[in-house]
């Protein structure tokens, strides 16, 4: 067995790896391709950057392709992204043309790889229209939606649905996000990689050194939110919570956001966050390069409480990452956060900045409960949200697509 598989086995147990190898054997000699819109930054890129190597270690023939596009294309896909999460608005004729043109161009560039693949995973809306350019595709195509599409903007969804409907199946993170589509809609949670730099165990000295390097004092309890500077992550609501807590407890707030190549809105939201922080020396706003995995690991490991006060959330992998580091998380009561945080067991789901503030004050004044909830959080991730489990589900999904039997119970 390879060193990488041995490292995974140390975390999830040899039995899990044996089970994955047995499933992978059934997909031997099948060509699998993943397509998304960025190589780095954001949850999808992070999942693929660990899932693809793990799949290869298991003996699968897997590749990962990234579509290309100019600023106008990514501005357009950002509108689609936000609209699927419920924001009002429509796509103009020229934006539709930009979207289709970029998809056509990428389809042409990737045609040799995609035409003959046995399974193609298309992630999120950006490359979704490419399927229309492959009328004679050989394999099964799956649309993987990572977004909270529970109440999409109707006109934008109707536009995208024309393409999505052509897929053989789709995958959503939660049943709440599924739509009326003429094909099977599987429910699979995303996951984190326990052996990557972002999630490995770091010693205290490295954590303190990182905080020091970033100019953040560790003399006061630290509240952290790690996420893109995106309106749906509600960084302004986090600052509001901080101010309420600050009336009672002297704390520091760290807002750490990554850069994503496919997110043109970052600058605007960041500027609003800086205005709201108003030069408060106890608020640190960090715009980290997309490869700052070890730094984010140290920030999460050293925080007293982690927040993810999203108002919309596909899944919330930063919640999973913090839970893996034994942190109780205060999260918005939305999307995939609902699946991860169980009130009073491993964190709290909240609706308002005030709700977040009261829960954080409680945790800071009850260290024993905080520690217990942190332990629960790690175990919960171990059992449910590691990359090994996601890959297992996706591999069995592919096998299930090959079946001709109509029964829901099948021997393979």
């Amino acid at each position, binding site marked *: 067995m390879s060193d990488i598989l041995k490292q995974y086995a140390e975390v999830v147990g*040899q*039995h*899990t790896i*044996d*089970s994955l190898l*047995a*499933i992978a054997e*059934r997909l031997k000699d099948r060509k699998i391709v993943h397509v998304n819109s960025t190589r780095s930054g954001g949850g999808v890129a992070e999942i693929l950057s660990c899932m693809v190597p793990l799949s290869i270690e298991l003996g699968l023939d897997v590749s990962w392709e990234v579509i290309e596009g100019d600023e106008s294309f990514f501005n357009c896909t950002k509108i689609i992204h936000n609209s699927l999460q419920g924001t009002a608005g429509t796509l103009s004729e020229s934006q539709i043309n930009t979207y289709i043109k970029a998809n056509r161009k990428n389809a042409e560039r990737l045609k040799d790889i995609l035409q003959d693949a046995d399974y193609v995973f298309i992630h999120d809306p950006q490359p979704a229209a490419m399927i229309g350019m492959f009328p004679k595709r050989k394999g099964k195509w799956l649309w993987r939606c990572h977004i909270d599409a529970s109440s999409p903007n109707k006109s934008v969804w109707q536009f995208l649905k024309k393409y999505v409907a052509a897929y053989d199946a789709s995958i*959503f993170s939660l*049943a*709440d996000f*599924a739509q*009326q589509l003429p094909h*099977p*809609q*599987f*429910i*699979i*949670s995303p996951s984190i990689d326990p052996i990557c730099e972002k999630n490995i165990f770091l010693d205290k000295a490295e954590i303190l050194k990182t905080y020091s390097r970033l100019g953040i004092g560790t003399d006061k309890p630290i509240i952290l939110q790690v996420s893109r500077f995106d309106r749906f992550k509600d960084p302004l609501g986090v600052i509001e919570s901080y101010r309420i807590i600050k009336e009672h407890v002297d704390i520091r707030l760290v807002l750490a956001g990554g850069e994503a190549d496919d997110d043109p809105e970052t600058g605007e939201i960041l500027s609003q966050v800086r205005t709201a922080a108003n030069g408060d020396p106890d608020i640190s706003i960090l715009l980290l390069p997309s490869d700052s995995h070890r730094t984010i690991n140290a920030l999460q490991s050293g925080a007293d409480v982690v927040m993810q006060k999203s108002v919309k959330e596909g899944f919330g992998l930063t919640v999973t990452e913090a839970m893996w580091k034994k942190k109780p998380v205060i999260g918005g009561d939305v999307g995939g956060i609902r*699946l*991860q945080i*169980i009130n009073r*067991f491993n964190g709290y789901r909240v609706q308002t900045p005030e709700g977040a503030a009261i829960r954080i004050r409680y945790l800071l004044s009850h260290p024993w409960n905080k520690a217990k909830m942190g332990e*629960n959080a790690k*175990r*919960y991730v171990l*059992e*449910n*949200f590691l990359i090994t489990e996601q890959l*297992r*589900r996706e591999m*069995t*999904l592919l*096998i*299930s697509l090959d079946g001709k039997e109509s029964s*829901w*119970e*099948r*021997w*393979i």
Partner: protein
Amino acid sequence: MNKKIRPFRFMECAVLPLATGISAQTLRELRSAVSGIPDSSIYYHFWGRMIRPHISESEFNNDFASWVNNSIKDIKLAEVLSAINPDRFQKLNEIRVILENILDKRLENEDFLSWKKADRDFYFISCKKLMFETSCEASLPEELPSAVKKASRQSFFYHFIDGRRRSPECKDDFTQWLEQFPDETQEARKKIQKIDPYLFSLEELKEQIASLLEESFGKGGENTDV
């Protein structure tokens, strides 16, 4: 002993959840939908929950009871629904009928809760269950503890949780296999049968069964062909 002993062959299992597109906002909508959902949806909401994220502290043993409690706040009805022991029914449709009867009875009383809109919708989920053989097996009771420890969560689910559903006598696969050794395994079988699978997470159950088997048959079998 002349009788040929058959080894315990470990199977793997995957339960893949599928959205049905059917949801309910009220008890009446739940009642109406229950009649039309596929059998696999009944399976998923009673058994499938064991293999997806859940905690042992969960008070209710099926999704219908949890939703009625958490989103409708009809605690009495939630308690009645939670008392359904799905292992007692051989056919999934029998559980559907029980559900229909309980909900019909509840809806005869047209009070506020019977038409209250839920805090969160109930999403009916169906599933596909795939099973396949593995090379792992145990030939003697002494080999079973280490083999159970080495089994994946999904394999354990298949043999312990799903096994009870498949057996007309509501016996898990381990118990049935141990019956080949009637005298030496009698005590262990009784103890296994007493474990309530709905009160623990899958990992907790696996640990419990493995240590119970270890206490009964020792830690032998480390060389089991796994």
